[in-house]
């Protein structure tokens, strides 16, 4: 069992409310996922060559100041770093491949959680309310977000196994369910040079869909090939730089409910985590159907 939450703000003027509206949604899914939590938030995209990288240092202390100093010389003087506890966002215009290689060589203890122009990603073990407090989720602002509360069933409870999973740039996926063919997906992708960080089944789905899009598929075409190739139980919620997307497997064993108003689209595993959203009594509430694609675009 796990909980998924998603929120897309329709009115640009309300984007500063994103974190505050989401927080009761995430905490409301604690019973479905008490062991880890994570949140991907999509902001206005950076311009030009600039990219941002969400970095995670794990437990213990990390000398972020050393990274900051090294980045200005190693990646360029325009590199900046903003730190929250064991998490930081590195912003730079250096070449993306160079950034990953440089971090791996100079700071091997760091994990790159996400990369892109719009995505920031936080995930860690602990109860959802603790993780939200640790990274100040209530102050998040942006166009849309994808969150998850985890109750591990098929692989270890570690920060790396927490959701969302990411692949490539500005793409993330969270999952409620379990896949039955993640290893055949891996065996298909690994010879193509696609490397995996964990043995988690969800990572296989994430990397498969991102690979399809990198090969030229639209999000919808990638999701269609996901219906054909991914076997098992799933409700997947995905974020791209400007989209939120939701799909359920043909048997729809894993729940999902959607609430939509003029101001937002909110998605959760269960209504109880939507109950505190503004104007929820007047929201259009419905259950997504199995094997249908639901895609919302940020304006």
């Amino acid at each position, binding site marked *: 069992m796990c909980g998924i939450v998603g929120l897309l703000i329709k009115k640009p003027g309300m984007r500063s409310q994103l974190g505050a509206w989401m927080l009761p949604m995430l905490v409301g899914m604690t019973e479905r996922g008490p062991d880890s939590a994570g949140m991907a938030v999509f902001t206005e995209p950076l311009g030009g060559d600039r990219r941002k990288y969400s970095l995670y240092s794990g437990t213990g202390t990390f000398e972020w100041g050393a990274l900051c100093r090294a980045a200005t010389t190693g990646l360029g003087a325009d590199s900046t770093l903003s730190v929250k506890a064991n998490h930081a966002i590195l912003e730079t215009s250096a070449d993306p491949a160079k950034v990953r290689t440089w971090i791996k060589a100079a700071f091997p203890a760091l994990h790159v959680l996400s990369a892109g122009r719009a995505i920031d990603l936080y995930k860690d073990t602990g109860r959802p309310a603790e993780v939200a407090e640790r990274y100040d989720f209530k102050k998040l602002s942006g166009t849309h977000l994808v969150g998850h509360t985890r109750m591990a069933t098929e692989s270890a409870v570690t920060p790396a196994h927490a959701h969302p999973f990411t692949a490539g740039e500005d793409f993330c996926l969270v999952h409620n369910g379990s896949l039955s063919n993640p290893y055949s997906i891996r065996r298909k992708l690994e010879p193509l040079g696609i490397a995996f960080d964990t043995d988690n089944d969800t990572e296989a789905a994430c990397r498969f869909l991102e690979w399809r899009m990198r090969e030229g598929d639209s999000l919808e075409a990638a999701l269609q090939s996901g219906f054909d190739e991914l076997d098992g139980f799933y409700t997947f919620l995905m974020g791209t730089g400007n989209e939120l997307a939701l799909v359920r497997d043909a048997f729809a064993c894993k729940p999902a409910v959607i609430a939509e108003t003029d101001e937002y689209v909110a998605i959760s595993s269960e209504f109880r985590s939507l*109950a505190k959203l503004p104007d929820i009594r007047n929201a259009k509430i419905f259950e997504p159907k199995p094997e249908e694609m639901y895609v919302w675009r940020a304006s």
Partner: protein
Amino acid sequence: MASLMNAMVDTPAIGATFDLATQPLRELNRFLHRDLAGTRAVRVLNPDGAHNIAVGVDAPVDVDIDGHAGYYAGGMNKQAHITIHGNTGPGVGEGMSSGAIHVKGFASVAAGASAHGGLLVIDGDASLRCGISMKGIDIVVGGSVGDYSAFMAQAGTLVICGDAGDGLGDSLYEAVIYVRGSVKSFGADAHEEPMSEADIAALGALLKAAGMSHDPKTFRRVASMRGLYHWNADANQEY
């Protein structure tokens, strides 16, 4: 009587109100199980999708839930008349044996699963596996039902005023389905049969009890071909 003290008693021995925004669910369910003492009506405010609201009630009490309920609302119900003024999560009325549950909105998967008796009315749609393994309950769905509804249904009646998804009535036993709209596909061993006068009378009574005004003659009967009742060693064993 601690829970009675905590309930806001509108009129002692007649009505009580529980607000789940401030009172724990267990207080409500304990009251319904042990402390009714003649209470005829219980109102539940701010259900907000909580699980297990009014499960296991065994008394002739009216329960009104003012909003959306989560998993297993009214599960294992006996005697009570439960109205949900909103939608429900999975398994509404699961295992019910008598009484009635009325969902004013839509119901998620497995509505009325394994239930032995009583009446479950869903004004909106019901999701997949509605009436799975039902054993005597009557279910009336005002809207449409999802795939695999009435899977392995043993006894009782499923009335579908809208459409049915794939695999309707797969591996049916003696439950009967009446469907008004289209059927995407029948499950193994389910087929359409002619409506008899007895069917029209029984369906008319159920529609009336459910407060639906459709003409029973506009429905079709779906029942078991009973081909799976006995092992057929000569059948082509392809699964």
